[in-house]
């Protein structure tokens, strides 16, 4: 079986390795860099910058940890970017090494379907080549959405991609959109010293999360002196001599050194020859797929962001595995019922399953349990006491419908709930499992106990 994969991001590269493991002859085509948006302009670089910002933030608390300091500490953007680039290149090498080890052929160039069975590759530093295969996986991903109201110039009006390459920390940064990307950058640049303002159309920050999580994040942003303006639309953005002028729907005008627009992402379906392959697109220019991840052309599969579902690297990776398995003869379906998600604000957010308002809308008979990190000895020892763990469970069955964590290491902690939900476990199972002391995980056990009104480290209600 010959498989060609278009795009070597977290969807495509995982699909390539899986397919090779299953015995396929695999060619993967990448126009920019292996690892895709996730590794080069997304997940990994933002976390690297955030790590620098958090180290710097900690230095403001040295006294409270009993560390005396003499001299001054300041972030050096050039070195921060060097560190980021080093982290990326290590990971890129890792993926290239895996390709080599599993015998995956990497073609570096822009791939375009010229027929349902052939892709022409415009190689970076070699002549054109044609790749033929029995099955294809389209994993071309997405890019920051651009709309005419925000004339990106890559310098003053920027997207997340340029926000990862700023040579200097902007004195002021206005972010359009308080979604995941907007809030992550708000935390990074406010910790590094920028004066940050976020303008959001929806009534709350990270509006796809549980309302209680949004509320706490908004308070934490306020602590960082990030100004959040909600239910306001940005009408127009103009670059002038004294900075970027932002005109709001309430008639106000704000000025900032840079404006970061994070209002969503567009699907990479242009210029890849879908018409030559006979693959049809949906209304948002996404590629619709069935549960087995096939497009309307059965031997052409599509995975990840480009399919227009939830834009998460780990969904793309899982879909990559399923598509590879299906091509190799399996009959698997992509199940999106348990998808944990992480937001790397400070503090972090981890979520899985239903939000409380969704449980309410569905008319479910549910109960909740909540536990504050500040009631844990470990959180105090770490000096990170803000945040909570919240569980939403079905009353009759005691099964976990959703869980939400905002606080230290929330992105890691959430997986205990994801495993429990995947295995159909009950709240009782988490409550009755011994959790090691002193850990943040104890808070998960206590939140589970609180669902039954039996948390130990909480006052009587």
């Amino acid at each position: 079986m010959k498989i060609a994969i278009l795009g070597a991001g977290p969807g495509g590269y995982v699909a390539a390795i899986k397919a090779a493991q299953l015995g396929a002859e695999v060619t993967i085509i990448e126009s920019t860099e292996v690892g895709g948006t996730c590794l080069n302009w997304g997940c990994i670089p933002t976390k690297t910058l955030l790590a620098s910002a958090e180290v710097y933030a900690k230095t403001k608390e040295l006294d409270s940890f009993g560390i005396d300091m003499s001299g001054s500490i300041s972030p050096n953007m050039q070195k921060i970017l060097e560190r980021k680039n080093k982290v990326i290149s290590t990971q890129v090498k890792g993926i290239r090494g895996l390709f080599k080890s599993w015998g995956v052929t990497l073609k570096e160039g822009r791939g375009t379907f010229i027929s349902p069975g052939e892709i022409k590759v415009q190689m970076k530093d070699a002549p054109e080549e044609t790749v033929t295969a029995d099955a294809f996986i389209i994993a071309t991903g997405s890019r920051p959405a651009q709309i005419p109201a925000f004339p990106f110039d890559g310098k003053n009006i920027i997207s997340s991609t340029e926000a990862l390459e700023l040579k200097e920390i902007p004195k002021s940064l206005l972010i359009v959109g308080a979604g995941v990307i907007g809030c992550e950058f708000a935390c990074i640049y406010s910790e590094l010293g920028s004066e940050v303002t976020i303008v959001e159309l929806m009534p709350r920050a990270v509006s796809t999360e549980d309302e209680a999580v949004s509320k706490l994040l908004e308070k934490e942003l306020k602590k960082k002196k990030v100004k959040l303006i909600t239910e306001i639309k940005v009408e127009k953005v103009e670059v002038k001599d004294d900075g970027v002028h932002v005109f709001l729907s309430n008639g106000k005008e704000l000025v900032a050194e840079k404006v970061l627009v994070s209002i969503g992402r567009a699907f990479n379906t242009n210029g890849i020859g879908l018409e030559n392959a006979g693959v049809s697109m949906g209304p948002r220019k996404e590629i619709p797929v069935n549960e087995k991840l096939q497009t309307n052309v059965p031997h052409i599969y599509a995975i990840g962001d480009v399919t227009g579902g939830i834009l998460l690297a780990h969904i793309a990776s899982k879909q990559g595995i399923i598509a590879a398995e299906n091509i190799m003869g399996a009959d698997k379906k992509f199940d999106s019922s348990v998808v944990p998600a992480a937001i790397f604000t400070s503090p972090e957010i981890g979520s899985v399953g239903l939000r409380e308002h969704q449980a309410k809308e569905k008319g479910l008979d549910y109960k909740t349990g909540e536990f504050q990190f500040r009631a844990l000895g470990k959180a105090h020892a770490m000096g990170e006491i803000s945040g909570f763990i919240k569980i939403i469970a079905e009353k009759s069955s005691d099964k976990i419908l959703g869980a939400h964590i905002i606080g230290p290491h929330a992105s890691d902690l959430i997986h205990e709930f994801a495993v429990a939900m995947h295995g159909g476990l009950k709240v009782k199972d988490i409550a009755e499992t011994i959790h090691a002391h002193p850990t943040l995980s104890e808070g998960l056990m206590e939140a589970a106990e609180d669902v039954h009104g039996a948390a130990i480290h909480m006052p009587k209600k």
Partner: protein
Amino acid sequence: MNPEDLKYHKEHTWVKVSGKKATVGITDYAQDALGDIVYIDLPEPETAVEANSELAEIESTKATSSVISPVSGTVIEVNENLSESPEIINEEPYGKGWVAVLEIEDAAELDELMDSTDYEKYVEEEAK
């Protein structure tokens, strides 16, 4: 020990009225129960607040709790010093640790509140 010229709410807040202006804070009992206060989320000026609803949110090392407004009104001033030094509330709950000043609408609401003697009795009951 609770000043006699203040009125007290059962959610452990106090109010001092002078004309239409009402200064609000939390009581000594409240600050002691909360422990070390690490942050207060102050309301924005011009926010309208109902009596018995949340005026501000206090975080201590032990708990997060609401500051319940003893009166209805519009926030005309907040104690900005608390943003940088919330521990002032622990140190001087009835003085420099005030939370906000409201312009009150209905002075009759004050009649619902306790005086210092009643509040002390109330706290003794709560402590039992």
